């Protein structure tokens, strides 16, 4: 910051000297030398640029935390480069040790710079304006005016006038010394200290916070315990008992898409009507959950961050018994909600059945096969391949519900050896060849993806940010200035009023004008107004 006092140019002045004396200084001197180096402005500058540079690769190389799929694609496409990138943490830039090293060093340097300056500023707060210099004419702005000898109280008026302009004023026998703009350094310090608090807020959020997502089929509910999350991450100090025991039922979900010629298919409305029960036994309340309008339940925030389709399917086995019936959540692959998933009927007998399925909300068949051409469900259809195999022993091992592990299964084929391909519209059902069973598309429902989380440090960071911006404005826009006014004897019985001033920060306009104006105001007879 362009502060009144800039950081010591330690690297320049004390650097070589310290180096020459290093053998005599011992390890303490060495440490002190290192500390001076670290807290010098030059190091701060270098660290700032290092931070800017280090942040860049994370925006160009896919990041594991944001899109793990793209990271694995990246590694597969580049067999040599990928593992090297992985090793040096380019897929996790913002949690990598070298990135942390830069910003931690920067904050250490910042603290090391601020603490002494706070002490200096504490003294400056009580400091009086410096004594009037002998030669006011040597100051950057200077004005002079003759005043009549009867004008006795000119110094008092000068002091009053300056006090009105928020100067700190000292009256001496023949002069007035004044200074203003102490808030500049205060703003500067507030800004830098606030940055530390922003980081503290972030750290609290990382340590104590948690965030997870859960896919909830419309009509069903979510209750806040770990088993209900699809993915979950929490800070080191988070405890499972921190989860508030609320539950949310998604009553219905409205979606609207652009049907006009411009941006056809773009989302226009997402709105979920939900029923919230704050804790077991509490009376449920109705709420509306929208993008940009999260729910706050018992200190936890619930966001609506995604949606998709779940076709309702009934699978019957070879014996005619229902082996599976219900909605199957499928994952959207593109903007038109081409959705991929797996229908599994492990209880089908004598052989279990499974389907690799594609749900298309607005299906068309063209050269490239079945495709969805609009995100809303205008012409929904389900396409599937069929797999069968001997019943599997229940292992209790979790498996991916969205994809089919074909180990131990064989694909159902027609007599000509081609795989059986099923295409179903809502209400359609087909019998599988060889009497393997049947599958029917009963309908479809939507699902919503809820993000449930709590980031406890946010209020700290937010308040700190507000202080940071306010401090920044003070440190950039407050303009410290010193003004001295002296009355001395002139020719005959006349007296001469001298006004001298200097600005202590860059980018201040009008110093000369202000000084001339002050001289004129005090003398009422401006005589010689020079900018010198």
């Amino acid at each position, binding site marked *: 910051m362009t502060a009144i006092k*800039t950081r010591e140019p330690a690297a320049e002045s004390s650097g070589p000297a310290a180096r020459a004396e290093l053998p005599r200084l011992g390890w303490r001197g060495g440490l002190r030398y290192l500390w001076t180096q670290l807290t010098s402005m030059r190091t701060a500058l270098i660290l700032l640029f290092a931070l800017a540079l280090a942040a860049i690769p994370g925006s160009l190389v896919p990041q594991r935390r944001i899109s793990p799929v793209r990271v694995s694609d990246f590694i597969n496409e580049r067999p040599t480069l990928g593992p090297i990138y992985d090793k040096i943490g380019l897929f996790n830039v913002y949690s990598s040790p070298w990135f942390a090293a830069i910003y931690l060093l920067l904050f250490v340097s910042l603290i090391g710079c601020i603490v002494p300056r706070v002490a200096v500023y504490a003294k400056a707060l009580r400091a009086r304006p410096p004594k009037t210099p002998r030669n006011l004419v040597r100051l950057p702005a200077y004005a002079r005016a003759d005043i009549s000898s009867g004008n006795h109280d000119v110094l008092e008026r000068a002091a009053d006038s300056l006090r009105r302009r928020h100067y700190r004023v000292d009256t001496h026998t023949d002069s007035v010394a004044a200074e203003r703009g102490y808030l500049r350094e205060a703003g500067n310090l507030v800004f830098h200290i606030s940055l530390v608090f922003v980081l503290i807020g972030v750290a609290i959020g990382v340590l104590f916070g948690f965030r997870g997502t859960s896919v909830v089929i419309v009509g069903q509910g979510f209750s806040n315990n770990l088993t209900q999350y699809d993915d979950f991450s929490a800070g080191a100090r988070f405890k499972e008992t921190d989860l508030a025991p609320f539950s949310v039922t998604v009553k219905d979900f409205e979606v609207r898409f652009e049907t006009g010629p411009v941006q056809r298919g773009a989302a226009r409305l997402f709105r979920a009507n939900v029923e919230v029960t704050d804790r077991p036994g509490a009376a449920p309340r109705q709420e509306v959950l929208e993008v940009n309008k999260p729910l706050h339940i018992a200190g936890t925030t619930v966001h609506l961050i995604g949606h998709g389709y779940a076709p309702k399917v009934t699978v019957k086995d070879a014996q005619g018994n229902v082996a599976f019936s219900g909605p199957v959540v499928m994952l959207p692959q593109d903007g038109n909600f081409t959705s991929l998933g797996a229908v599994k009927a492990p209880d089908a007998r004598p052989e279990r059945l499974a389907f690799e399925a594609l749900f298309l909300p607005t299906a068309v068949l063209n050269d490239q096969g079945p495709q969805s051409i609009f995100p809303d469900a205008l012409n929904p259809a389900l396409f599937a391949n069929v797999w069968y195999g001997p019943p599997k022993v229940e292992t209790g091992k979790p498996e991916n519900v969205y994809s089919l592990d074909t180990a131990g299964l064989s694909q159902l084929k027609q007599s000509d050896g081609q795989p059986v391909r099923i295409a179903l519209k809502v209400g359609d059902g087909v019998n599988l060849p060889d009497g393997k069973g049947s599958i029917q598309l009963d309908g479809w429902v939507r699902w919503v993806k809820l993000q449930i989380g709590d980031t406890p440090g946010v209020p700290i960071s937010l308040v700190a940010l507000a202080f940071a911006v306010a401090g920044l404005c003070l440190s950039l826009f407050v303009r410290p200035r010193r003004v001295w006014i002296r009355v001395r004897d002139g020719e005959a019985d006349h007296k001469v009023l001298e006004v001298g001033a200097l600005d202590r920060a860059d980018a201040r306009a009008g110093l000369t004008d202000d000084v001339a104006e002050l001289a004129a105001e005090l003398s009422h007879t401006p005589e010689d107004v020079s900018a010198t």
Partner: protein
Amino acid sequence: MRYEYYSNVALVSSVVVYALAMFAHAAEWAAARRVSVAGETEPELVDVAAEDRHAKPSTMRPEPVEGRQQADPGTSPASSARVEQFGRMGVALTIIGFLLSVAGVLLRALAAHRAPWGNMFEFTITAMVLIVGVYLILLWRTGMRWLGLPVTLLAAVGNGLAVTVFYVAVAPLVPALHSVWFLIHIVAAAISGAAFNVGGVMSILYLIKKRAEDRGDVRGYLERLPSSRKIDLIAYRFLAFAFPLWTFTVAAGAIWAEYAWGRYWGWDPKETWALVTWVIYAGYLHARSTAGWRGTRAAVIAIIGLTSFWFNFVGINLLVSGLHSYAGI
């Protein structure tokens, strides 16, 4: 639909008019090569920094404009009048272009029934209105016509890119943009972006002027620029204005992200580059108060900062997929 059509007509015309204004200013620069500014007075823009004067009392006097002494006695009043003529022409054209682009933005808002900041195209045309508006105010208040050429160039290129590359037809907003932070975040971004751009242009002019001064070879148009020290100060004022506002822009974006996406910071490419830009300008402000970094180095940092701002705006939207790409482009 009609509003949209007229908006496009106005914007395309503004590109043409800005381009003409740029040619007029270029002609002004070219004509000025043969004319010395002897006798003309330079408007007082900013005080030369106090500390510098304090340190070196000898520089307290108003600086003589370099080159004045070498005034060519053979300069004809006719060529001087031509400089003036081209300059006025440039300003007149700039005003027409400005009115056209204001009309373009307003009609766009009418066509869309909302604030016209929903996509890159709309953001660019708004930012260009701000940039040219700031320039016209400066011109009116302080007579900075020397900014004409770079500003009209920027406006012609900016609006030109907008109507060709960034153009998207009027459409409503996606749900993620339905928020009061849409207005706050984007207005702050547009204003600070405009100030970064003006500051960056100043920094480029500073480097050019400084080089000429160091060589002792200030001729032609460069003579008409204020001293490099003054350009540096004006650049600083713009960037010092833009920086807190940019801080606010990023903070407002974080607050909005917390509402819309459920996390205040997710290292989305746009967020990352906003931070990179912020850090670079923080470096600029620090450099200005560090011995050995003032002047040329600080100006280079300011230009790097502007580059990063533009990359964040154009490059990230077009090259990298992230959460900020939502409006077709």
